[in-house]
């Protein structure tokens, strides 16, 4: 009776998980160099020197992969008037009172916010990361640039990691979401409850 709805194509899923794996490696290796208490994480990539060598290459891979995701989802992430209302009622969001929220399209305002945080931080991480990349680019950079770049790189990483922690939790919290990115499908009930306008658009209400 209620066959699932396709939410992500196999290409989009591969793109997402490639980015996600790169993100995890970057987070672990980056935090290893950020705080001495986490230096032990550098062993995951084969020690401190290997961490220094591999981190930038994985970073470039994540950026290129993310460009694919951004390209696919850009149009669906424009912030609208309804999104502002949704954000203003964040108490209902975290309180599981979705009936009090305005209708949501393919993405809710929280997801859109995360999307734009990712677009912004990934761009800045790429630029600052290249500036401090030894031995290829950093030797040419003036010291003042190195100092700004390392700080901005850390701040953007922090924002991105914070965003992704919320992203992962939301996928665990809102049941049925994980399946969208692992198998590409969501149930009709899921679509209707969480993304009613999108559900209508994809023909859910036609039957």
């Amino acid at each position, binding site marked *: *009776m*209620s066959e699932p709805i396709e939410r992500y194509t196999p290409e989009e899923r591969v793109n997402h998980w490639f980015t996600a794996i790169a993100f995890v490696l970057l987070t672990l290796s980056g*935090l*290893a*160099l*950020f*705080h*001495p*208490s*986490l*230096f032990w994480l*550098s062993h995951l990539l084969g*020690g*401190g*020197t290997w*961490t*220094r*060598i591999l981190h930038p290459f994985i970073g470039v891979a994540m950026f290129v992969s993310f460009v694919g995701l951004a390209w696919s989802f850009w149009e669906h992430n424009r912030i609208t008037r309804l999104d502002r209302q949704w954000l203003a009622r964040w108490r209902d969001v*975290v*309180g*599981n009172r*979705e009936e009090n929220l305005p209708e949501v399209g393919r993405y809710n305002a929280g997801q859109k916010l995360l999307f734009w945080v990712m677009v912004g931080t990934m761009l800045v991480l790429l630029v600052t990361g290249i500036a*401090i990349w*030894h*031995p290829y680019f*950093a*030797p040419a950079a003036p*010291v003042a640039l*190195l*100092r*700004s770049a*390392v*700080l901005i790189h*850390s*701040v953007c990483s*922090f924002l991105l*990691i*914070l965003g992704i*922690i*919320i992203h992962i*939790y939301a996928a*665990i*919290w*809102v*049941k*049925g979401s994980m399946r969208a990115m692992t198998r590409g499908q969501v*149930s*009709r*009930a*899921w679509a*209707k*409850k*969480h993304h*009613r306008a999108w*559900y*209508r658009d994809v023909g*859910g*209400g036609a*039957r």
Partner: protein
Amino acid sequence: MPLQSLDIKDRSATTTASPSIRGGIEVAKLIDISKCIGCRACEAACMEWNDLRDVIGENPGEFASPRGLSDASWTVMEFHEVEPDGRLEWLIRKDGCLHCADPGCLAACPAPGAIVQYANGIVDFHEENCIGCGYCIAGCPFDIPRISPRDAKAYKCTLCSDRVAVGLEPACIKACPTGALVFGSKEDMTQHAGERIADLRDRGYDNAGLYDPDGVGGTHVMYVLQHADRPQLFGLPEDPTISPLVSLWKGIAKPLALLALGMAAVGSFFHYIRVGPNEAAERTEEPEESA
């Protein structure tokens, strides 16, 4: 190199106490620029003792040779032609690590034990622990460390920590023919500098003084400057400190960021425990209501 494992004052990327049961006196090298003739014996002695051979460069028509510090040139004479009071002066400064009491390189370094500060004040790089990230370059207020193009490790003057550990003076001191370089306890060197400064003032250098900048907690390589009011004439920063960007990055930002990330993860868990999952009831048997 790590000869003195029992008297380490500070160690990079280390959150617990370093082996520090042995105290000892703080040492210092005093460079009296008014006595330096620019012979470069110190450069040669440094290369010889440390067994370093830099790549042969090109002479662009200036006296400095090599033109600046590198992985294999840990000390270099800088030749400054200046006219501070309408009178030509040739100020020759031996450039190299100043061994700050508050070292920016050590604060920035993410690799445990790659940079250590001995109780005697020497700041030493242990290249076997260096990962080649270059953070020390961002941390240093004096632009001293160099990443080697050969092995991607950071190098700089060791103040001959290996010689000092066994009671010898650094190689550059031993080679200096004019007494422009002297070495001893920081206290003695400060006192000796005072005598030199009094002499220079007698000779008309009213602004002669000691360069031992407070911004980095003082240094263990100090200069007697004829114009201590204008250290930039000698190519030295006027008021060096660890950049506030570096202090923020490797200071308060470190614990705050980890705390915030940890709280986001733990907070999420307790949100789940308190509010529970957000489920869309699957009513497979009932016809769906129209939207």
